[in-house]
């Protein structure tokens, strides 16, 4: 039987000769040996004098270096030490990451006054039954990276008037001037508009109400860059609350998503991911699993995790909603395409069988579609279980029509004062150009944004906001849940909390801390009964970072939702779609453009395309053939095409993406910033102008796109086939049915290898007490990348920039490999066949596999190191001693997992010799690096060495954390407990896919996982004896499509 083939990119699937040649090379590019020989420099006879001269120079340089004085270092203690501070010991503060609509309760690790790491919050205030519990215990890549934004030198350093610094001594005057101008405008009946993003903070909402009262004639416009207003509007119409419901994927046994990327970018993805996997984890005790159907136009992170997936055009997502509605009612449904139709009827049957335990979600921003989806959920009795309107969501309050009204007013000169707070419409509104033209004409413009962004540069006054790690704030993402943000560092620059500027303007004395405390005392304290004194309540809230108040909102539950009007509107709109369709999406890392200046997120490979530092036009392989555009992976460049929609023509590189609908193209929003900061400027193309407005809400898809070749090429940094396994068998998967019948299926494969394992020339490593090990559940891993960013933050892993990534020089210790395969109905294909003829690239399946150092007991890297810089510890760690490494790179060449990273250049600027400074190296874009100035370096973890040029590095299993855990146990004189030592990737993971612990400890979680029926070792046949076991992926498909486990082992 033929084996199922897994591949990372089309070039790997088709075994493109150029790609193979490139893959097989030791180095991504030829070493410049030929160049040197060719230059003749080596051919010239070397005279004895030259030799002596060089010798002399060398000796004197060495002598000079040796006679250098050791620099005097100072140890500067506090004058008066705060009681809780112990130098060298981390302090942990509960806080909440809030940035726009992103929120995540976190713990902030503070070392010697510097916040250096974000960890998920664990609080006693949220019970195991709490409906909000899945918000806790996991983080997103964005939350992980937020600590780097704090130290961003391109944050504003002081307030400005017309771009000029307001000096400290003048600030009071400037404030007075601003205040009186505003009062004058208000007094003469002028129009004052406060434009903000969604305000999650209840105290700030109260403050804004105070502000509006203080300035009669002012109003508040909530503007979200990426709008989900239709969802809120649909619920307002039928339930009476302008809000999205609280979703509870953990209750759902059948999930149908119509273009909603709820695991990646939709509403509260980290929380949803945590909910979602509750029903996805299988074990011998629990052989139940939810079934997830996804209907979408381009392959999203959510689609990649779905059990069943069908592609359709973006305009057909609405039709799919109608079809599902009608199928559930037993009516004839409109047809979309064969696969989608079949899947829709299967989904409908499944939904019917799981009333009250199912969930249908849609990513559409069309109110009609959202009404139909709400009707479906209501019909299925899901409201109250998988959707909670009584615990509705408070994020995404933005509404689209008022923003259009504001723009009209701005253009007609009807607005006299304009204040921005957390809103950047010049960049992210489709008519940003018109905003840019109108803003300078407004009499008074004030920006409270935390960046000097596209909108702020056009404003007269700028009072920059703090970073969230410098501020007091609160956050209420759901009805009944209050989170606390507390400052963990003194403000780095002369910024001020935006709320305090507003307080100054409306004449409220004191700081925002006391305002917030007053608000909590009056509004939140009375809602609870655990505390009788406010001080005790407040102290507890600050310590725990979260307060849950058990109240439910009063909402009216409709009997039924009449969708006749909505259906007609939807069907009519779908009819109008013509030609190629365009789909605009957000990236899991960089989002709507807010994080454009965060190099950790910009260098985090997109979970699906694995491209960094760019946005691009995703097209299907079939369309690429039609358009005759190419993408050359070996050379890492692709064709530039010019894309026209309406009046806007933009030039974008193409990226050929399997899993995409054949006549749909997709581009990520959030790129092409011009005032993001040093590393985010001019990266990619701004496609916000392609967002359309349908009279009610902004739409993120459109039809009638015209694409033409430009004949030019664009260099893309594509990491998908870097560190290729060269077709070796590294993935195992099964289906739920097979798993139920035989959980051990595939076990034989390991048994027969045990004989081989015994045959080794090398002595066994003694393991006196501990064998650190890890397990990674491929069924839980959704590929979000939080672990990768967490690893980068914990281990001082440098950012290298786009040019270096193109040379396969990225430094990430942990990468997430994304593999495609074809489902069985198309049969198994071998390399001899012409794929384009027989397979449908739209129907690819995806598996994510986090790949990091496997800490092999029989490590191939250890044996080849000539200087013993990498060797084995008595705890099973494959140790790397950086200062012993001489950079032969033999270890990297011998590592079958390709997880070793070499410092080709001085990415960390650790080298003190000025001629080695990175800005002198043409291929290094210093703006991309994050460790080259004293402020940004404050983010470094002081417990981990910063590696310099010429040194190999790799995952250490967070050895600093292991040492700390052991020390803690020793100091307390107790045995090490399971869960004491947790790696950075493990703690960051929102789905608990990664487990870590001692394999020699009886009953440890990781030992259990290693003995699980699903456990397998990657490339076990090489007898490397890895310390990481992967748990096979299980798909809950209705089709039988796996044969990998039945097939003979490839190397058997």
């Amino acid at each position, binding site marked *: 039987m033929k084996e199922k083939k897994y591949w990372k990119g089309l070039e790997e699937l088709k075994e493109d000769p150029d790609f193979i040649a490139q893959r097989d090379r030791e180095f991504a590019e030829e070493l410049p040996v030929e160049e040197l020989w060719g230059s003749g420099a080596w051919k010239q006879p070397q005279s004895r004098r030259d030799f002596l001269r060089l010798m002399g120079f060398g000796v004197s340089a060495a002598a000079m270096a040796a006679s250098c004085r050791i620099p*005097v270092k100072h140890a500067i203690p506090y004058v008066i030490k705060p009681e809780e501070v112990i130098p060298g010991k981390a302090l942990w503060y509960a806080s909440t990451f809030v940035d726009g609509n992103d929120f995540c309760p976190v713990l902030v690790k503070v070392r010697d006054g510097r916040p250096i790491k974000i960890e998920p919050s664990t609080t006693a205030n949220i019970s195991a039954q709490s409906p909000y519990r899945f918000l806790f215990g996991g983080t997103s890549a964005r939350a992980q990276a937020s600590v780097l934004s704090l130290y961003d030198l391109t944050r504003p350093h002081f307030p400005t008037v017309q771009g000029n610094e307001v000096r400290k001594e003048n600030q009071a005057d400037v404030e007075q001037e601003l205040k009186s101008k505003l009062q004058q405008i208000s007094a003469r009946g002028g129009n004052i508009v406060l434009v903000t993003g969604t305000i999650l903070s209840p105290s700030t909402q109260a403050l804004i109400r105070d502000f509006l009262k203080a300035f009669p004639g002012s109003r508040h416009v909530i503007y979200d860059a990426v709008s989900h207003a239709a969802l809120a509007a649909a619920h307002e119409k039928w339930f009476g609350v302008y809000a999205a419901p609280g979703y509870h994927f953990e209750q759902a046994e059948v999930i149908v998503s119509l273009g909603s990327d709820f695991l990646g970018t939709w509403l509260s993805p980290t929380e949803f991911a945590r909910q979602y996997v509750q029903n996805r984890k299988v074990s011998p005790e629990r052989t139940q699993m939810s079934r997830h159907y996804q209907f979408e136009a381009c392959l999203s992170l959510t689609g990649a995790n779905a059990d069943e997936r069908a592609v359709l055009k973006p305009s057909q997502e609405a039709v799919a909603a109608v079809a599902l509605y009608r199928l559930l009612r037993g009516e004839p449904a409109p047809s979309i395409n064969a696969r989608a139709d079949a899947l829709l009827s299967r989904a409908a049957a499944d939904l019917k069988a799981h009333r009250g335990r199912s969930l249908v979600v849609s990513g559409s921003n069309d109110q009609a579609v959202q009404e139909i989806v709400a009707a479906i959920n209501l019909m299925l009795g899901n409201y109250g279980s998988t959707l909670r309107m009584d615990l509705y969501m408070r994020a995404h309050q933005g509404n689209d029509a008022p923003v259009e009204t504001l723009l009209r007013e701005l253009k007609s000169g009807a607005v006299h004062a304009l204040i921005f707070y957390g809103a950047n419409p010049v960049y992210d509104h489709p008519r940003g150009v018109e905003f840019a033209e109108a803003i300078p004409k407004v009499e008074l413009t004030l920006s409270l944004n935390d960046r000097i962004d596209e909108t702020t540069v056009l404003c007269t006054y700028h009072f920059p906001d703090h970073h969230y790690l410098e501020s007091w704030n609160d956050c209420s993402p759901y009805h009944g849940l209050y989170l606390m943000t507390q400052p963990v560092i003194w403000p780095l620059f002369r910024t001020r909390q935006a709320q305090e500027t507003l307080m100054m303007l409306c004449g409220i004395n004191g700081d925002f801390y006391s305002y917030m405390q007053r608000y909590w005392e009056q509004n939140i304290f009375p809602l609870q009964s655990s505390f009788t004194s406010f001080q005790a309540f407040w102290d507890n809230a600050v310590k725990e970072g979260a307060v849950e108040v058990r109240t439910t909102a009063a909402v009216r539950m409709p009997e039924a939702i009449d969708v006749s009007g909505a259906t007609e509107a939807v069907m009519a709109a779908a009819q109008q779609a013509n030609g190629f369709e365009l789909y605009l999406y957000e990236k899991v890392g960089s989002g709507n453009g807010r994080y454009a200046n965060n190099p950790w997120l910009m260098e985090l490979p997109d979970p699906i395309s694995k491209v960094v530092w760019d946005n691009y036009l995703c097209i299907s392989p079939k369309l690429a053939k039609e358009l005759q555009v190419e993408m050359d992976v070996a050379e890492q460049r692709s064709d530039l095409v010019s894309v026209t929609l309406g009046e806007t023509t933009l030039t974008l590189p193409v990226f050929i993406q399997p899993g995409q609908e054949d006549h749909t193209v997709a581009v990520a929003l959030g790129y092409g910033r011009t005032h993001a900061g040093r590393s985010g400027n001019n990266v990619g193309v701004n496609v916000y102008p392609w967002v359309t407005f349908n009279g009610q809400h902004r739409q993120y898809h459109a039809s009638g796109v015209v694409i033409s070749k430009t004949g030019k090429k664009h260099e893309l940094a594509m990491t998908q086939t870097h560190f290729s396994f060269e077709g070796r068998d590294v993935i195992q998967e099964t289906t739920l049915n097979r798993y139920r019948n035989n959980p051990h299926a595939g076990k034989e494969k390991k048994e027969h290898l045990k004989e081989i394992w015994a045959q080794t020339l090398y002595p066994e490593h003694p393991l006196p007490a501990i064998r650190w090990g890890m397990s990674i559940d491929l069924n839980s891993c959704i590929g979000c990348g939080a672990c990768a960013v967490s690893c980068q933050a914990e281990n001082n892993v440098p950012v290298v920039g786009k040019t270096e990534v193109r040379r396969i020089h990225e430094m990430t210790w942990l990468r997430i490999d994304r593999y495609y395969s074809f489902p069985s109905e198309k049969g198994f294909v071998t390399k001899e066949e012409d794929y384009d003829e027989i397979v449908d690239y739209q129907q690819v399946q995806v598996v994510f596999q986090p790949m990091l150092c496997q800490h092999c007991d029989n490590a191939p890297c250890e044996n080849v190191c000539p200087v013993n810089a990498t060797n084995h510890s008595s705890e099973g760690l494959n140790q790397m001693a950086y200062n012993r490494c001489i950079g032969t790179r033999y270890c990297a060449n011998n590592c079958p997992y390709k997880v070793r990273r070499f410092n080709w250049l001085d990415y960390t600027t650790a080298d003190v010799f000025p001629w080695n400074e990175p800005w002198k190296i043409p291929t290094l874009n210093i703006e991309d690096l994050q460790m080259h100035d004293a402020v940004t370096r404050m983010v470094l973890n002081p417990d981990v060495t910063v590696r310099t040029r010429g040194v190999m590095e790799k995952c250490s299993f967070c050895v600093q954390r292991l040492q700390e855990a052991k020390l803690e146990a020793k100091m307390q004189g107790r045995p090490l407990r399971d869960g004491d030592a947790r790696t950075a990737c493990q703690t960051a993971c929102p789905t608990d896919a990664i487990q870590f612990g001692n394999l020699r400890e009886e009953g440890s979680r990781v030992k259990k996982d290693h003995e699980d029926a699903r456990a397998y070792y990657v490339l076990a046949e090489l007898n490397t004896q890895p310390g990481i076991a992967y748990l096979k992926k299980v798909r809950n498909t209705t089709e039988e499509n796996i044969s990998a486990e039945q097939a003979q082992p490839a190397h058997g």
Partner: protein
Amino acid sequence: MTLPARAEVSAEKGQKLFKQYCASCHGITNKMVGPALKGITQKRSEKWLIEWIRNNAALRAAGDKDAIAIWEEYGRNEMPAFLSLTDDDIRSILAYVEQDAPAAAAPTGGPGAAAPAREQPTMLLYVIIAVLLAIFLTLVRANMLLRRMTAEVTGEPMPEPVPWGQRLRSPKAIAFYSLVAVGLLGFTLADSAIRLGRSKNYTPEQPINFSHELHAGILKIDCRYCHSSAEKSKVAGIPTVNTCMNCHAAVQQGRTPEGTAEIQKIYAAYENNRPIQWVKIHNLPDHVYFSHAQHVTVGKIACQTCHGPVESMKKVYQYASLSMGWCLNCHRQTEVQFQDNAYYTMFTELHEKLKKDSTLKVTAQMTGGDECQRCHY
């Protein structure tokens, strides 16, 4: 006037009593809350002193002019009565006060003193080399003599002896010199390279001339009173100004005017809210992770093991080389708290061995203490 030495009177006893009862307000040579006491026995009679010390209030009440004058002079600060002190006790205190030096222990340390006792083996080495060289030369001489004698016997012609001057300038000799020179140079280079960055005996000037000899040696303040984080953290911690102020709020006078001037620096730092910039002596390279807590709290290693006799250092210097070899040597030899700490229960095989052989020493090395990633990560 010198006090007669009596059986019950001794300066030693006086020192104890002085510390116990007087030192918080009186210095010997310096004015504190009360006057400096040096020379007091010349100024006042022994009888008066005894009465004053035992109960000065009574003396004043009796109308003693001197007593009232002193009381006025020192701002009517009440000196407590010491009714429990016997006459001999008081005489002992006075005897101690009149001693010249304030009974400091003779300095035992100093940078030079820390030079290791390695000289002996080196000397022995030289002697052995000299003896071997002598034997070698004798043998060469004997060999030559024997050869000449055989030549005489057999009648073979003896080669013309080459003059020493010519021999020393022969190509062979030059090659030999070069070899020696290269060897020496190479050794020096390697040796200096290894020493690069090591700073044993480093004794920098500190912003405050703080004496560990006084604080740790004489006053016997526990190291961890000031370096409190040594028990909990990787760093031992330099005491913050408020730690100094715990004592120096009361102890305002040094034993010498210089000492008082040094103490003033603490107040300056405290009042101006400016931290004191101490010079760091023990510097480990950035790629070394060292935890004091591990060694002090878990390993129960005395501070002196690595830092040397700090209690006798007027000026602190780096006692140990802090080289990797020095670290490893200790890790190979030092026993861990294996039986006492429940953490080590998981070393089951070692416990089994220990059951069979109770003399077994479990060293840090046996629990992995000599591996790269214990210190380098």
